[in-house]
């Protein structure tokens, strides 16, 4: 009995680590057969492809895969739907570790650098035609490049703007803010016992940092000189951090959120007057929240400065460990890198609303981008800068700085200094 109890406790304690350690060893829920298949040209090739979309976006992916499979006999794409949360956290890293990762990968700026640094992404440069390179917006093409090599294919651009309750602004006689001072003033005036003036993301997450980038740039701050040196301890960064933290400190922004910080339901349900969110919220605004009077404008800028927004979005890449890189590249380029822009157009106009990464797709769908709330976003599309892709140590330091100014009672200057120390410490 003595040993049994002790052993039982030891095993109970062991499960603490087992859950964590198990993550590194457990196979991902793949049905993959592709990576183990022969690369002999005569044999049929099966490509594994995992996506994490729902609704119309999932329908698009299903149709795309079916069309591709029907269009030829040499390659079969085996599509599996997975959870987005798992995909962006543990699923892909563990699958890459145990060799069961799909042939085709989605990457975003937060994961692009990590995977590129690790050599997990195949070189797609040979599959880019000169015409395609010229068609993709230069800054976006740059964001898919690592060490001079094209490692991903951009499929969309999602920009940020200021959503607001149009009726409320009219009732209160407040003009839509264009400057930082006006935004602060409007947020304070529109804050009541039941409503926040402005919803900003609050979590220590990459999404919060994504929302901060435009304000960082508008204050004149940047993080890198492009030569591998990361400098955040600057007066400009301090100013941006102070501005970001001022809303939570003043009580005009919430310190916790019931629904997602991207969901403009915060405005629709009356718990917020304004919210920073992205072009991805337009579809919900026009459908789920059609009864609410939600409009959108460019993000306010410091007095005398120009408004800037950030453009994020997913890119497609090919697993460097895939035995069928050429086939996988052909599949992704068939939709988003082809002269036939039907699918590329459908993705950004029907499956979801986003801006395309290619000028030809923009030109072919001009009408769509000038309809309703889309027109508001199109008006400041030209101010977008691609979401940067920094090493994890830099993004972690910036994320902590945002928490420090929002909740830690820290000044922007102190938070920037602390972030710089964290970056230097690695």
């Amino acid at each position: 009995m003595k040993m049994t109890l002790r052993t039982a406790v030891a095993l109970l304690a062991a499960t603490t680590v087992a859950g964590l350690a198990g993550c590194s060893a457990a196979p991902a829920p793949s049905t993959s057969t592709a990576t183990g298949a022969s690369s002999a040209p005569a044999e049929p090739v099966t490509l594994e492809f995992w996506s994490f979309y729902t609704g119309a976006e999932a329908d698009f992916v299903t149709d795309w895969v079916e069309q591709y499979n029907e269009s030829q006999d040499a390659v079969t794409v085996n599509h599996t739907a997975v959870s987005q949360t798992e995909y962006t956290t543990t699923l892909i890293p563990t699958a890459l570790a145990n060799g069961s990762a799909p042939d085709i990968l989605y990457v975003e700026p937060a994961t692009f650098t990590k995977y590129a640094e690790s050599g997990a992404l195949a070189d797609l440069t040979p599959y880019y035609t000169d015409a395609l390179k010229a068609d993709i917006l230069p800054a976006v093409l740059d964001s898919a490049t690592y060490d001079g090599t094209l490692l991903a294919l951009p499929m969309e651009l999602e920009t940020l703007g200021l959503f607001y309750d149009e009726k409320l602004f009219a009732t209160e006689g407040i003009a839509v803010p264009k400057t930082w001072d006006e935004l602060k003033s409007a947020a304070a005036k529109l804050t009541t016992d039941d409503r926040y003036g402005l919803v900003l993301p609050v979590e220590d997450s990459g999404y919060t940092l994504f929302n901060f980038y435009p304000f960082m740039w508008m204050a004149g701050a940047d993080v890198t000189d492009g030569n591998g040196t990361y400098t955040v301890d600057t007066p400009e960064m301090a100013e941006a951090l102070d501005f970001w933290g001022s809303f939570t400190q003043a009580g005009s922004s919430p310190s916790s959120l019931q629904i997602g910080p991207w969901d403009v339901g915060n405005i629709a349900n009356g718990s917020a007057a304004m919210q920073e969110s992205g072009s991805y919220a337009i579809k919900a605004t026009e459908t789920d929240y059609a009864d609410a009077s939600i409009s959108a404008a460019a993000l306010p800028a410091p007095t005398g400065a120009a408004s800037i927004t950030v453009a994020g979005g997913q890119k497609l890449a090919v697993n460097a460990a895939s035995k069928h890189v050429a086939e996988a590249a052909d599949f992704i380029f068939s939709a988003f890198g082809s002269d036939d822009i039907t699918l590329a157009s459908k993705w950004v106009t029907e499956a979801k609303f986003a801006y395309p990464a290619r000028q030809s797709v923009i030109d072919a769908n001009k009408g769509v981008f000038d309809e309703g709330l889309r027109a508001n976003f199109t008006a400041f599309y030209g101010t977008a800068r691609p979401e940067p892709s920094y090493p994890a140590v830099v993004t972690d330091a910036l994320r902590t700085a945002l928490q420090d100014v929002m909740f830690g009672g820290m000044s922007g200057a102190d938070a920037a200094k602390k972030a710089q120390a964290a970056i230097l410490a690695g």
Partner: protein
Amino acid sequence: MQNPRVLTRRRRESLAAAAFLAPDLIGLLIFVLLPIAYAVYVSFFDWNLIADMEFVGLANYERMLTDADWWASMARTLQFAAMYVPLLFVLSLGLAVALTALAGGTAANLRSAYLLPFAVTSVIASTLWMFLYNEKQGYLNAVLNFFGIPDQKFIGSPSQAMISIVVVVIWTNLGYTSMLFFAAIKEIPASLTEAARLDGAGAWQNFLRITLPLIRPTTIFVVVTSTIAAFQILDIILVMTGGGPADATNVGVLYIYQRSFERLEMGYGSALSVVMFAILLVISLVQLRLSRSSNLDG
């Protein structure tokens, strides 16, 4: 002289027992012991999950010694455990005693009611409590406002977030733990309490001298398992605060998760896991030893 028929039966019983235990033991080996061994192995490497592993010896453990963020997260784990374990113990034991005193259908209905939160998944429980904690539209602040107390930020406040999480975890587990105590109290022979009452013992003395000593095995089980659970807390924190605000709820397991999967530092994350495991093992063994010696003293 041994009876061969008995031996045969014993052997048969042993074989049957082994057959019943084998699946569980094999599962334990594959899904618990091997991953632990692998975590120990990985902890000696620098590994980002994708590139080749590079042997670094004890470097990950040396790094841990000077990692202030790790020790801060462990301090928060201790803070959580120091609030959660005693509160859960006292509340669930108190509830079990109260339920024992009640008779009939009321007690049965109350037991079911208290057990209900245990059937709710942690994500649902977290979401429900986020409604209650909502600063401007939540019910808790409405109640506080009724008594003239101003709005509280709860999970949005660095000083209130941890206790707010503790409340949710206790709400989830109170019914189950009180059932364990309830069952243990019911096992106490009525003759003992009767005899104590005849000797003039009051309710409090009866509880201290009869109930508490006789439910000691359950007490040990509850304290050990709730301590382990406190060190493992992750899911509710991930949903409700993500470790914030300003790292106020960034506990040890969450820090390990961040290092392993956000920073892709699996070698370092494994080293932290091994240390966490060692700490838990020591705590569990100390608790067992203390309870055993206390049993012997008694």
